[in-house]
């Protein structure tokens, strides 16, 4: 007798435990506030409700259970049979996820993340759907705000690009306009200086020469500005041909020989006897880059100093070096070297004059050749600039 009673009570206990388990799950689902979790019949009729559902959608259990779940969709979605299609997809693939606007009981909209999962019995027959909905309106608001500010930023960027192009255009136009009168001055002063209007009296020569060199500087600045505007706006045309490094360096140093003699500086081109490489470059512009480095080296080296130019092959590149025994550049100033209009104050910078465009332009042009410029310097000891340039293909080496 004790046994059946015991069995019965065990069954009762088991039953009670099972009921307890179901109750606990029910409680669990019902108490969740952050997610709307509820059951749908295979036809889409709402069969259960939880706190989260009430909070998200605004309906109480007694007013919503028994209604079709399409009540949460906008009219346009209902007309497009969106609720039905979502159930069909869930049935077909097991699950469907959607992010879109849904409607609360008071008619207001919220941005919902919805997952509908098909529920099947042990025999595989569809018994209904589980629907989990999250209110992501806040996140959506942030995303929209972010998207909007991105759009504003993009618009501002375009505006800046437009203004920058207008600035380049202005500089270009202004420089062109300035160059004509500057050129006329140069011609007239040059003619005076070179005696086309008769011998210049001794005491007038000094101011005339000052005017002439000042005008040369003016033309230099105008030309630099024009080149910069042209390069910045992408209008600089680079025509690459194989250029013999040795020939180019000889040509450049010959042209500078007088300047160096005047400054009592020695200029040496120091190439290995076997060095016969050609780089792929626009001869004119690349020549100007190297000339600029050579001129800088001279300008920032005191009288009596020396400038050595070297070249070496490194893999598929040639590295041309311009080494001086000048004032040098401090490590903190090296970073400013290539900035537009940047001039680094040192013992000679007031004397030599310049507009801070040379290296900015040089780096741009070298990078248009897929090359690079680097620098090594010790204040008081000297500076070396290295220009790395791609070699011309073997077949095209002159």
């Amino acid at each position, binding site marked *: 007798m004790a046994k059946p009673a015991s069995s019965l009570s065990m069954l009762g206990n088991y039953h009670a435990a099972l009921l307890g388990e179901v109750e606990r799950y029910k409680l669990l689902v019902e108490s969740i506030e952050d997610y709307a979790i509820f059951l749908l019949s295979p036809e889409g009729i709402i069969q259960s409700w939880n706190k989260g559902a009430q909070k998200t959608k605004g309906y109480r259990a007694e007013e919503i259970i028994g209604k079709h779940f399409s009540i949460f969709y906008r009219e346009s979605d209902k007309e497009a049979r969106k609720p039905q299609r979502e159930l069909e997809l869930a049935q077909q693939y097991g699950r469907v996820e959607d992010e879109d606007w849904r409607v609360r009981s008071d008619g207001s909209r919220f941005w919902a993340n919805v997952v509908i999962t098909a529920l099947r019995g042990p025999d595989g027959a569809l018994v209904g759907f589980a629907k989990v909905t999250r209110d992501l309106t806040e996140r959506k608001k942030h995303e929209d705000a972010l998207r909007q500010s991105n759009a504003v930023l993009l618009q501002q960027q375009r505006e800046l690009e437009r203004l920058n192009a207008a600035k380049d255009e202005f500089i270009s136009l202004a420089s062109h306009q300035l160059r004509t009168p500057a*050129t006329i001055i*140069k*011609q007239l002063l*040059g003619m005076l200086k070179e005696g*086309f209007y008769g011998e210049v009296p001794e005491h007038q020569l000094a101011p005339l020469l000052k005017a002439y060199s000042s005008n040369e500087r003016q*033309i230099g600045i105008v030309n630099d500005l024009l080149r910069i505007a042209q390069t910045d706006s992408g209008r600089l045309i680079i025509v690459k041909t194989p250029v013999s490094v040795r020939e180019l360096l000889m040509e450049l140093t010959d042209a500078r020989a007088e300047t160096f003699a005047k400054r009592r500086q020695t200029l040496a081109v120091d190439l290995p006897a076997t060095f016969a490489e050609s780089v792929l470059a626009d001869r*004119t512009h690349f020549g100007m880059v190297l000339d600029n480095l050579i001129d800088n080296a001279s300008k920032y080296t005191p009288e009596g100093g020396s400038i050595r130019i070297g070249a070496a092959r490194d893999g598929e590149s040639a590295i041309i070096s311009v080494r001086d025994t000048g004032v040098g550049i401090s490590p903190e100033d090296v970073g400013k070297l290539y900035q537009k209009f940047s001039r680094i104050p040192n013992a000679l910078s007031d004397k030599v004059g310049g507009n801070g465009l040379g290296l900015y332009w040089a780096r741009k042009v070298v990078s248009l050749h897929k090359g690079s410029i680097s620098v090594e310097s010790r204040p008081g000891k000297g500076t070396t600039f290295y220009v790395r340039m791609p070699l011309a293909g073997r077949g095209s080496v002159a």
Partner: protein
Amino acid sequence: MCGCRLPEGAALLKVLLVEDEEMLRESYYIILTSAVYEVDVAANGKAALAKCKEKHYDLILLDLMMPIMDGTTFLERLPPAYLARTKVIILSNLSSGAELEKAIKLGAQGSLLKATLSPKELLAAVRYEIAA
């Protein structure tokens, strides 16, 4: 002055200077005539074409950016037979760019940068270009 002497019996080289800027035109005229050149001037491509119809020039110094007719249009309109017997040197302030390239393609044989040349350097460059 340049102090050039004309060899006995040698004909003056005939130069046509095409330049729209009056002051530059005058300066270049003085500079070129100081050497052994016979110089005619034109203020634009159209005027230059008219000059070329009248006579043969050994050298044409041609500006590019000019009103009425620019330098490249002048080169396009100049009869090929004429172009073959003369030498055209661009004298402009363009050190590079599409216009200059176009002029070279059209038959100009060299280019000089106005803003970089002193009068004597200009003469030396012209002499060099004629000899080349």
